[in-house]
């Protein structure tokens, strides 16, 4: 089985704040990590490879330092990583990003399944996975919480919805986006770490994957950010005091007063 897993490097904490006086961003010592949901996608791809044989390629679009994220995937069993990095990709929204990743998938060529985390923690859009599938014209199953079976070119999956889950049967090739419930990612082995340290991550540019220039970066992105600002400040809360029974009475009255209960 040939598998492609898409990963994104994101700030390790979402604790990015705006200074309300100057309206500028304050970002203190935030380290970059692999988007947590993508780790589940990586684990699932490696598990499938171990079961059925084949090859796993990890793919990321980002600045040169995103190569570190790809190296991390090599340490847990991914065979090779490819970084898409080009100044022309700057300003990409989810549509341009989906197109760019799909171009890279086409260059990689043969694949049975593409796996993505269901969303990234910095943007929370959940749009790029289905966007890649649309660009490639292949089926897409989002919110996958379990792969039950892969047999004769067909995969049976469980897709998590708000009130339960669907059991879906779909032909390969397919793109899936996964949620946390699907597995527990392994820790890198010593050998894996050695391999990752020595690895060279190839970098592909827009020209390498034959992108149409008006579909990438800012020109290929219909949406653009006009303004960023701090959310309205929440007024600080109130700590209740007194005996437990007194506090219980007070909170019940408050919530009744607010017509919440």
């Amino acid at each position, binding site marked *: 089985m040939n598998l492609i897993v898409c990963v994104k490097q994101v700030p390790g904490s979402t604790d990015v704040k705006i200074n309300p006086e100057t309206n500028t961003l304050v970002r203190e010592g935030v380290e970059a990590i692999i988007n947590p949901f993508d780790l589940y996608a990586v684990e699932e791809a490696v598990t499938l490879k171990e079961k059925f044989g084949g090859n796993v390629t990890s793919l990321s679009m980002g600045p040169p330092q995103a190569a570190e994220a790809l190296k991390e995937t090599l340490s847990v069993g991914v065979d090779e990583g490819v970084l898409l990095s080009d100044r022309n990709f700057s300003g990409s929204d989810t549509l341009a990003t989906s197109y760019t990743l799909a171009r890279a998938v086409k260059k990689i060529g043969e694949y049975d399944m593409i796996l993505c985390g269901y969303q990234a923690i910095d943007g929370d859009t959940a749009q790029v996975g289905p966007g890649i599938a649309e660009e490639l014209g292949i089926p897409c199953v989002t919110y996958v919480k379990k792969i039950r079976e892969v047999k004769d070119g067909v995969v049976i999956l469980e897709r998590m919805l708000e009130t339960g889950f669907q059991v879906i049967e779909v032909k390969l090739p397919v793109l899936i986006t996964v949620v946390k419930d699907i597995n527990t990612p392994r820790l890198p082995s010593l050998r894996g770490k050695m391999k990752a340290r020595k690895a060279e991550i190839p970098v592909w540019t827009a020209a390498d994957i034959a992108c149409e220039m008006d579909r990438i970066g*800012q020109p290929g992105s219909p949406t653009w950010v006009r303004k960023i600002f701090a959310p309205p400040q929440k007024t600080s809360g109130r700590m209740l005091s007194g005996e437990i029974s007194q506090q219980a009475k007070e909170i*019940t009255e408050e919530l009744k007063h607010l017509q919440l209960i």
Partner: protein
Amino acid sequence: MGIRVDSSKCSGCGICAKGCPFGAITIEDRKKEHPKFKRIAVISPACTLCGACVKACPFNAITIKKEEKKPTEDLSIYKGVWVIAEMSEGQFHGVTFELMGKGKELAEKRNTYMGCVLLGSGIKEKAPELISAGADKVIACENQLLKDFYDTVYVETISAMIKEYKPEIVLLGATAAGRGIASRISGRLKCGLTADCTGLDIDSNGFLVQTRPAFGGNIMAEILSGNNRPQMATVRHKVFKPLEPDAARKGEVIDFSMPEGIDRNMNIKEFVKDVSQQVNLADADIIVSGGRGVGSAEGFEIIEKFAGTLAGAVGASRAVVDAGWIPYSHQVGQTGRTVCSKLYIACGISGAIQHLVGMQSSDVIVAINKDRNASIFQVADYGIVGDLFEVIPAIIREIEQSGN
């Protein structure tokens, strides 16, 4: 690329680098000499052109030039604000009516109609419900193939409708189903899509202004969809208010025939209902969540009882899901669900940032924790310091005594 650092003005002070949310600016030694400054800001491809550095730079040394793209077609042919109705088990999802409430307001500002897209099998009788909720037009597609929710069939049909009737704005619920098809429709039509908007408005040019949180709600962004149409957005449940239904409202029902030859390319074998969720977490008005302070899987009984008393849903922190005390479908936070309830009661949850980003936009937050210094109290409207096994029974008693 549209961003430029003016090398004659940049002092290499680094204020821009500190202000960049994406870590896309480094301060490096100058290759060409400058009479005063030794260092200069260098922009990496991680740049998203958000403009934070332009504002931060005290020397006006950074400029962003957006490539002015002319519309490829006459935008005035696009008319109408559409809402894609979502149904499950024969009922409309609440978000549909909320989107219509907002959609009507946007349509009035644009001096156009509000249309509602209704897809399914045996759904025609549902159209009056949409009209009384505010729809001027209902674009209905009745087909056996639309009985179950197959992404591809919905994507193909809705895309065909948009191509034929050319609405200027299309709104969908940010549900599991809505998010999946919205992205594919925008990919097919090559138009802009903004996820999880918390505000929608029309600017002086008549464009849709989409406000959404980023970085777990620590930053708000205003997003425009340029000259591409339609302008698409998804919105979470409970963000906007529905209109009062009015049976006297009039509207037109348009029949749309499904495009031929759609391959649904997968097979839904069954749907398994989550019986551990008495009340659906994503849609709940009231959520009672338990964390490590609950102590054990058995300890969750008190959380369930409390939630039961309030007719609310049961949530949980990541720690207790990882410990196996309660299924993942209850997890609130960064790697679980993001909720926006009217009342959120956090019991024995310390309040790690990963939990806070998933619930801090709830209207009223009550925190119950033994540790006075727990960070959950920083986002709480009401804080109670105490053992949840004493506090919760006391509150339940109080509610039962005072009657509802």
